[in-house]
């Protein structure tokens, strides 16, 4: 089954960094894109402008995906603005790093709610349409943290490992309906979110460099494509060999 013409892609946290690169890349592949953002409307507008400058179609929609009501509204507004969401990229994420002995309940909850619960809720909603359409692509942006340890990120690791586990199970549930569910696990990628840890971390990477956001987006673009229809329930590491 090929992507229906009326379909759109929703990229959460699509205003900056990896999310913005994914939004631009999917638009280059012909997807009309909803660029979701929580607070940085200017950055979202720049991403939309970048897509439109290349002849693509995009709209920016504000919503905090950790909020159930806002997440539901995000799906509704996406459908109204462009069309049914048949490609969902759960990219929105936050960090609240601390050693486990010092990690507060608030820091734990904030990361789990946005990175994992928010992804689940949006996936649950989007699947209803995807199942009926007999086509869908759900792509979670996980992390090498989760499959691997990283001191100071027990909450982030739990959320990202949870995203991988959730995706595998959902993939099995909906595979017979032409809906694929996968995760992409970036390693050290140059973004605003990672700038503070990148320099000391890159020396541990076999490729001896940090990755680029476009290299993560390339994997998402493949997983969203018709060509990836038989790829489901898996995780693609984009990490310069770090997890090997």
């Amino acid at each position: 089954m090929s992507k229906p013409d009326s379909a759109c892609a929703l990229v959460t946290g699509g205003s900056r960094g990896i999310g913005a690169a994914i939004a631009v890349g999917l638009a280059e592949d012909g997807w009309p894109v909803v660029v979701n953002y929580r607070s940085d409307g200017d950055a979202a507008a720049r991403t939309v402008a970048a897509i439109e400058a290349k002849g693509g179609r995009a709209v920016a929609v504000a919503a905090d995906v950790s909020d159930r009501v806002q997440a539901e509204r995000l799906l509704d507004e996406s459908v109204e603005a462009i069309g049914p969401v048949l490609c969902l990229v759960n990219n929105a994420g936050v960090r609240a790093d601390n050693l486990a002995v010092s990690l507060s309940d608030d820091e734990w909850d904030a990361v789990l709610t946005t990175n994992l619960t928010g992804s689940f809720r949006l996936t649950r909603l989007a699947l209803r349409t995807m199942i009926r359409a007999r086509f869908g692509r759900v792509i979670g942006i996980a992390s090498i943290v989760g499959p691997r340890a990283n001191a100071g990120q027990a909450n982030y690791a739990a959320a990202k490992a949870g995203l991988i586990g959730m995706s595998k199970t959902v993939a099995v549930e909906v595979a017979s309906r032409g809906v694929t569910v996968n995760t992409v696990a970036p390693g050290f990628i140059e973004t605003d979110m990672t700038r503070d840890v990148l320099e000391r971390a890159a020396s541990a990477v076999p490729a001896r460099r940090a990755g680029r956001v476009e290299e993560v987006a390339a994997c998402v673009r493949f997983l969203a494509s018709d060509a990836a229809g038989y790829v489901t329930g898996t995780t693609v590491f984009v990490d310069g060999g770090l997890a090997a």
Partner: protein
Amino acid sequence: MASTITKDQVEGVVTDALVKFGTERELITPEVTFESLDIDSLDLFELGQIIEEEFSIELKGSDVKDIATVGDLVHVVAALA
């Protein structure tokens, strides 16, 4: 709309949906079980969505938990509508 729905209308919607899922039309009778038609839980979820949209009703889990046959479902939906 709800007060004007007949069992025949519900049967028609259910039958059309089951045919769309791949069931042969002649196998669909009130007595036949969904299990014997190879209708899985995801099909039943989708069938519920179709019924809700078609008849503007809400099917709760408690409404459908004991449904085994096509006739069971038609009876429940017609009673709700």
